[in-house]
């Protein structure tokens, strides 16, 4: 498994030298959504707290970095950290309200969606941050402004983000906190009876997850050169974040990455084939069907099956 991982990483490192710009772009999105999925995985997968409002952290992180850059001239490399810190604070507020007052299951889902929607509506109506038009970034190609002439630089940054988040999760898995989080997911009351401070560990998961997600917001803004409230705070983005770890296997290290390599190419193919001739939006139907298939046939995601197949191949 480790060798397979190392070989895959080596292949990904040399890929931009060989592949077309289109392929590189597809991979950037795979890495980026795998990154966001991995960040969500900490609270949604390991701790089992279904946040359906993670777009709030992407948006807050993105807006913070862009506004600080436009208004105060702060480099997005630094603004990124400020945005992530603010996202972590927002995550702590949502987590405190949810976990302190025992909102579980659908109630926690609703709480997280509500916060993301409030963020979206605020951003839509505050002219100082661009209102409904959003914010646009002028291209300068200055690396200090998180801008690059060469698409391949974004590729490596996105890959580095993904490795960072995966490293954090791998570390968590080996630490007491990771074991505690999976115990909380399985049975919170039983975990407390065994000495787990469930509130504290759920808060930790939420803060780390929202910090990493907020970090991703800056990448999103500076890769797309624009920010619209409906795009970065909207429910569709929250769904995009969740769908990959669930398809790949929530609460597993490889799940979000596997999910991204399944979902993103599918999305790309359905867009290619259904984009013209009155088929607009059909990719969303394909998406919905995929989700239904996963829930029905792979309730644990694809990872356990892939691992079994790999194990059989070795035996």
């Amino acid at each position, binding site marked *: 498994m480790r060798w397979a991982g190392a070989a895959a990483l080596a292949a990904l490192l040399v890929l931009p030298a060989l592949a077309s710009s289109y392929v590189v772009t597809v991979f950037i999105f795979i890495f980026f959504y795998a990154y966001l999925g991995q960040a969500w995985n900490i609270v949604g997968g390991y701790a089992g707290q279904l946040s359906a409002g993670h777009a709030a952290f992407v948006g807050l992180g993105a807006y913070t970095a862009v506004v600080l850059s436009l208004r105060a001239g702060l480099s997005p490399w630094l603004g990124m950290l400020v945005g992530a810190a603010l996202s972590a604070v927002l995550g702590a507020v949502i987590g405190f309200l949810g976990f302190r007052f025992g909102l579980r299951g659908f109630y926690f889902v609703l709480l997280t969606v509500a916060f993301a929607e409030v963020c979206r509506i605020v951003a839509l109506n505050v002219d100082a941050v661009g209102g409904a038009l959003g914010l646009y970034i002028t291209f300068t190609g200055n690396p200090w402004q998180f801008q690059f002439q060469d698409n391949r630089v974004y590729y490596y940054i996105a890959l580095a983000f993904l490795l960072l988040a995966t490293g954090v999760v791998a570390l968590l898995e*080996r630490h007491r906190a990771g*074991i505690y989080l999976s115990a909380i997911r399985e049975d919170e009351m039983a975990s407390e009876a065994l*000495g787990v401070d469930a509130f504290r560990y759920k808060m930790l998961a939420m803060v780390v997850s929202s910090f990493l997600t907020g970090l991703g917001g800056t990448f999103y803004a500076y890769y797309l050169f624009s920010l619209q409230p409906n795009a970065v705070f909207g429910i569709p983005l929250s769904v995009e974040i969740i769908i990959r770890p669930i398809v790949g296997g929530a609460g597993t290290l490889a799940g979000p990455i596997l999910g991204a390599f399944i979902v993103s190419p599918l999305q790309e193919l359905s867009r290619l084939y259904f984009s013209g001739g009155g088929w607009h939006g059909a990719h969303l139907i394909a998406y919905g069907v995929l989700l239904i298939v996963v829930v029905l046939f792979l309730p644990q995601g694809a990872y356990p099956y892939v691992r079994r197949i790999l194990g059989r191949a070795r035996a």
Partner: protein
Amino acid sequence: MTPLLTAERLSKSFGGVQAVKDLSFDVGEGEMLALIGPNGAGKTTVFALLSGFLRPDAGDVRLRGHSLVGEKPHAIVARGLARTFQIVRPFPRLTVLRNVMVGALARHPHPPTAEARARAVLDEVGLGGASHRPAGALTLAERKRLELARALATEPALLLLDEVMAGLNDAETERIVELVRGINARGVAILLIEHVMRAVMALAQRIVVISGGERIADGRPDTIARDPRVIEAYLGDEHVDAAPA
């Protein structure tokens, strides 16, 4: 000598139902005490009050002189009181080893140390061979032993066992009785809720009987078995059991 655990005039009501009424008892260091009573007597509520899952309306719980009222369950575990649940609550998708590690991590924050501890506990309860199976795949008898193993892995001074023998056959019950006796012999005090009277009589050094949330008797097993109030409380219960379905 001050007792290990003191429950002092505990009361708890749910709406209009008084589940526990002015209940006092104590558990000595290393003692094995059984808490018995007819169905609905309030035994499980007492466990929830002692382990911090419920807060008493009145009264106090002290472990080695330190009040536990208002403390969270995890903090009470850290003080040395662990419990099992009547309806076992394994972490179904985690392996048996991981399940027990969760308990062991309370004393050994470093996972490899906790793992070694968990393996030792699994061997003690006879689940060593099942350590890599998901807990959801265990039989009821194995789940009962897993429930016991997890609580034991927190290295308690007092272990509260809520009907760990219910639903088991005679051979399985015998194994658990031996296991519980062995744990107690190592100096762990045990408070036992049990309906299997054979097991209670075999294990308990002292028995507290409650009915309607109140203590009706407290004494050695042989005197309890002859106590008219106990016989009365149980006869009603048996009468219900004997009625044609």
